[in-house]
């Protein structure tokens, strides 16, 4: 049993068994408080070890720049801080799962691009992180295609679903199309959870993938036409659509783009916006709570049936731009562009794009003759790659509203 594969990672070219994982866990002595790593196995090992020994952990994206870390108020000198633990011997996967699930109050902190331009931290407990995880013998033989960023909420959900069932994880995140398709067949992957963008980039498909039982889609607006096309090539798969957020984890499961609101104690719709009860939220910024109880998600919905309440998502209320499942705050990008001495003014917005949902565009006013390449190089040291505008238009003026704000349409 411990010889079962825990993780196959195309990036490192390595394959780790559960035996290897247990050996590495049994050998730990000093645990980091911050996880700021590239290697997928190292990230997973850090999370499991912290969970096991109840050391609270802060999860950072490996591509956060020094400036971004400063904004998150993370002291770079503390990134290497460690806490000593006395490893206890774990023999089996069941024993590991029992120990992990016993630490319901263990805390993991991650970051989300805040709607005001300042990224904010959200602290989840093991309990809130794994609310949607199903542990059952029915899942014992699942093989997971891992297609999300491991330091984001969706990736963590898939990771725990697989780990707590002793499943094999096959890394597909950022993998080339042909690698993904090869792996689905060669590892007989049964479950994939990914953004619509990930699925869109698998096309054109020519072969059938009968091993896949479940395709989960989330992080972006549901794409009905895409779902139908997927079923042609994944004939044994059931599709499901998940609504989740960094603040609350997995919340609702939809059939197609229709969600049922079955628990009025947890969810309510006010003026077409979905609100979530604080009992579902991780710990974090509570200033946006209304009456100290309800969190406005910023997602606008259309009610299509009253009893029971059924709805579909329409759009974001705020200005966050969804780029292939990553939420980009245009204010944060504008602020960073304007730090460059040659830039007078910048306006950042999303343009609908069939591949990614949206692509980031910047209109820039500069009278110092800066080039797109120079500005891009400047931004590369400050922002994660998906936040950097892919098209920069140099313009002579940017229209302002009467209150002097950028005009957003």
């Amino acid at each position, binding site marked *: 049993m411990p010889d079962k594969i825990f993780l196959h990672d195309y990036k490192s070219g390595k394959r780790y068994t559960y035996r290897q994982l247990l050996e590495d866990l049994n050998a730990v002595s000093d645990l980091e408080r911050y996880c700021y790593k590239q290697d997928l196995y190292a990230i997973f090992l850090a999370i499991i070890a912290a969970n096991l020994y109840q050391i609270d952990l802060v999860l950072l994206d490996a591509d956060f720049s020094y400036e971004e870390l400063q904004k998150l108020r993370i002291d770079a000198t503390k990134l290497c801080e460690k806490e000593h633990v006395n490893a206890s011997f774990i023999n089996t996967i069941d024993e590991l799962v029992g120990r992990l699930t016993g630490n319901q109050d263990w805390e993991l902190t991650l970051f989300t691009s805040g709607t005001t331009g300042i990224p904010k931290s959200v602290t989840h407990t093991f309990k809130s992180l794994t609310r949607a995880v199903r542990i059952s013998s029915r899942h014992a033989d699942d093989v997971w295609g891992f297609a999300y960023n491991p330091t984001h909420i969706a990736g963590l959900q898939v990771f725990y679903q697989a780990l707590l069932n002793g499943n094999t994880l096959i890394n597909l995140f*950022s993998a*080339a*199309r*042909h690698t993904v398709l090869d792996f689905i067949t060669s590892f007989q992957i049964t479950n994939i959870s990914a953004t619509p*963008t990930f699925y869109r*980039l698998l*096309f*054109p498909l020519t072969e059938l993938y009968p091993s896949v039982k479940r395709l989960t889609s989330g992080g972006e607006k549901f794409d009905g036409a895409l779902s139908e096309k997927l079923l042609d090539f994944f004939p044994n798969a059931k599709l499901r659509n998940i609504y989740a957020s960094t603040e609350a984890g997995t919340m609702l499961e939809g059939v197609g783009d229709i969600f049922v609101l079955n628990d009025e104690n947890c969810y309510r719709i006010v003026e077409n916006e979905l609100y979530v009860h604080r009992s579902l939220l991780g710990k974090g910024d509570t200033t946006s709570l209304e009456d100290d109880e309800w969190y406005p998600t910023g997602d606008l919905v259309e009610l299509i049936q009253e009893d029971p309440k059924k709805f579909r998502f329409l759009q974001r209320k705020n200005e966050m731009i969804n*780029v*292939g499942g990553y939420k980009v705050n245009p204010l944060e990008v504008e602020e960073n562009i304007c730090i460059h001495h040659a830039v007078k003014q910048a306006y950042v917005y999303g*343009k609908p*794009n*069939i*591949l*990614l949902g949206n*692509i980031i*565009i910047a209109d820039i006013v500069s009278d110092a003759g800066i080039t*797109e*390449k120079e500005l*891009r190089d400047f931004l590369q040291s400050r922002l994660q*790659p*998906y936040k950097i505008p*892919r*098209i920069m238009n140099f313009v002579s003026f940017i229209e302002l509203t009467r209150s002097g704000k950028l005009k957003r349409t």
Partner: protein
Amino acid sequence: MLDKLLEIVNTVRNNKGLATLSDLKPSQDLRNDLGFDSLDLAELTVRIEKEYGIDIFADGFALTVSDILAKLAK
């Protein structure tokens, strides 16, 4: 047309720090040979649309340089 496409491809490549290519071959795969990821492909579509008024991913998918040329020739 190939020259203009080469210029656009090189803009996207240079933007991500890849070297300028001297020519394009129809058989080249956009991801494997030109080194484009999903963000690069989206940028490529916007730049091509700006130049030719055609969204190369609007009716199905383009994997190779010749796929793009076929869509632009329509």
